[in-house]
């Protein structure tokens, strides 16, 4: 590492610590990385998370481009509401096993088959995926905002604010999540999926609020906060500049997990008839409608289920990668 040559004392010459004058550039240079860069680097090296991210992006692109969204038309010509004559008993025409029957890869007319009245099941599944994704991300967003607000207020201001807010979270914690979600969504399930997402978000923020409060309770006693206060920083400034940035890891990781849980929660509620209401559809509605078809026409049952798993699993892997990336103790990148 150093330029010790025979005859010289093996001590560190002043020039050894950096390129000085005409000395050659050192072989190894150490550049300082910000914590953001380190987190990004650890995340990008996490194979599971990268795989999850790839799958999630693929699913989102497939769902939103294929049948289009809103006024924009997609490349898949069929509509999820249009009925057509049932071809070949609604069999799926997708063929991903070219070596088994020897007729090669094929997408065909109805890759996921058709349902009872001849609706294209691929279009239906894509529509369901869109709905479930939108609900899950709305839930994630709403619960993040509420959780951050409640956690911040109760963690920073303590006293009576904390007492009241924590008793409210205790009330929510006492009720099994599915139960309160079912009760709430029964009232608002007819009002459209965004409202449903909003309402569910108002139910699942509790865990996040408690975590944020915990972080705040320990951070607000740290020296750098005291220093900021001594310099005359106002409460909002301390919260926004000093405390919130330090909780960002916890928040991001947990919002990811909330989104994956929200996919499962929404589909479960729709399955029970308490979530998305027909004629609109979601992955849970599809599983619920075609659960009796699992014997005779298994593809009607398998595809929505597989999409639920693909979304939830990929988000869980991303969450795991983020957790490792934000963990400063993490040196080795696993999986």
């Amino acid at each position, binding site marked *: 590492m150093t330029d010790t040559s025979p005859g010289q004392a093996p001590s560190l010459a002043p020039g050894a610590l950096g390129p000085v004058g005409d000395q050659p550039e050192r072989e190894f240079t150490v550049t300082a990385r910000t914590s953001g860069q380190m987190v990004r680097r650890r995340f990008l090296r996490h194979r599971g998370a990268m795989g999850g991210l790839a799958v999630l992006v693929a699913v989102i692109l497939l769902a939103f481009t294929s049948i289009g969204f809103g006024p924009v038309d997609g490349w898949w010509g069929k509509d999820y509401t249009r009925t057509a004559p049932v071809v070949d008993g609604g069999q799926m025409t997708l063929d991903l096993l070219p070596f088994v029957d020897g007729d090669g890869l094929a997408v065909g007319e109805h890759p996921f088959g058709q349902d009872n009245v001849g609706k294209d099941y691929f279009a239906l599944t894509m529509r369901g995926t869109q709905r479930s994704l939108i609900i899950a991300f709305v839930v994630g967003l709403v619960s993040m905002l509420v959780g951050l607000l409640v956690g911040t207020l109760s963690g920073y201001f303590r006293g009576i604010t904390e007492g009241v807010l924590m008793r409210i979270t205790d009330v929510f914690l006492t009720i099994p999540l599915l139960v309160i979600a079912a009760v709430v969504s029964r009232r608002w399930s007819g009002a459209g999926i965004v409202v449903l997402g909003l309402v569910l978000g108002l139910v699942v923020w509790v865990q996040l609020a408690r975590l944020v409060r915990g972080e705040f309770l320990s951070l607000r006693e740290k020296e750098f906060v005291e220093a900021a206060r001594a310099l005359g920083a106002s409460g909002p400034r301390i919260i926004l500049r000093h405390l919130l940035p330090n909780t960002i890891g916890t928040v991001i990781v947990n919002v990811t997990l909330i989104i994956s849980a929200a996919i499962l929660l929404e589909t479960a509620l729709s399955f029970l008839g308490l979530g998305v209401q027909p004629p609109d559809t979601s992955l849970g509605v599809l*599983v619920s409608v075609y*659960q009796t078809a699992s014997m005779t026409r298994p593809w009607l049952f398998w595809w929505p289920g597989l999409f639920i798993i693909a979304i939830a699993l990929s988000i869980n892997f991303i969450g795991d990668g983020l957790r490792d990336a934000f963990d400063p103790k993490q040196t080795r990148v696993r999986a």
Partner: protein
Amino acid sequence: MIVYIVRRLVVSFFILLGATALVFWLVAISGDPLEDLYADQSPNKEDKIAERTRRMHLDQPIPQRYLTWLAGVAKCVVPGQGCDLGTNQTGQDVKVLLGNAAGATLRLVLVAVVVAIVIGVTVGIVSALRQYSGFDYTITFAAFLFFSLPVFWVAVLLKQYLAIEFNDWLADPRIGPVPMIALGLLSGLTWSAVIGGERRRRLTVFGVACAVTVLLLLYLLAVDWFTYPALGPGLVTVFALGTAVGVTELVSGLHRRGVLHASLAAAGVGIIAQFVLAGVLEDPSWPVVLLLAASTVPIGIGLGMVFGQLDKPQAARAAVLTGLLTGTLVFTDRALSAVHGYSQRVNGRIVATIGSDTPNFTGDFWQRFIDTVTHLALPTLAIMLISFATYARFTRATMLEVMSQDYVRTARAKGLTERTVVMRHAFRNALIPVTTLMAIDFGGVIGGAVITENVFGWEGMGTLFINGLERSDPNPVMGFFVLTATSIVIFNMLADIAYAYLDPRIRMS
């Protein structure tokens, strides 16, 4: 301690009060309870509407209805008053409905929680000890997969493949060469991953496990075991002695002869007992079974004292454990023997897909037990997958943390064997945080139970809840809610107390 518990109870009481008010209000505004009557065509429609309005107090504002309900519930707390949980829309007493439903649901939830804890903790510890091995990665992936599985979807799949098709298979049990080899390879992979060690040892374990599995399957098919399952005295003896050796290995190591002899003696007592008690075991009842299980404790302790030499406490522990496991073997043997008779009674559809028991089923103790088990099997499996993943991941994390503690290094530095380090120093401490997880997990299991009851057609509390909710009928929903919320609150408190008791660093305040 007492002050802490009292304070906790008072706070919990007010939280429950707030939660019930919230849920009552939400159910009451969730829809119009008279909706189905508006479409009614019968001439006495007006009467029906008036009747239901009167019964549900729809002419009163919601807060007043809540107070009426609360006054009824308050009688449950005051002794000698008799509970009043109100009636549902059609006038049935919710207390009676809940009483009928609670049995089935609690059975489901408790079995699922217990099985998930036992398997999850075991798997979590093994995967922590074999960190970054193939087994560890497999379990990690499986845990992520289970977290991402929709319960209702899995439940339908289980119904399809583990019930309907498995029953079909049982009608004519045959295993083709390809599935047979696949099962053998699977078993070989699992065992070699769990036992671990050098490459050579792993290969040996792999080969032996493969061969044993295939031979075992061939033997079972040859003797028509799947039609007439049982262990028989021979296998019970072999398994019991194997259990004795295994328990000794875990508790103290085989070189402690006293412990080994005590365990073997306990296994022997169990083996002899199954013949001596044959008359009792013909058609026992639950109190008798529990009494027999309880009697293994003093017998085991006695054997430990007699054979234990210098390791009396360890010998007693090993003997009690062996005795209980041998008893379980004998119990399993008896239950399996009853399967054929049971199968005849239900036309060969052994694994049930509907309900919590066969309606009007009468039989001896063993057949009734099989009936319960076959009805419980699939819903339990569906619910416990997620819990299993939670416990496995959590135990793995705490175990890894404990294994890197200083006192574990000290224990190793003292020259203790790896078994002693793991079993006596690390394992117990790793279990302490798991107690808190139990309380958190309980609510999730109840949510899972609501869904699986729906899929498997159980007449449980979940059905009561969903039906009540769909009709905007608060009383059944509140009955379900009060029971689950109270149990969650109590579970939470017990978990906190247990945590403080197990970990002296925690102070309750």
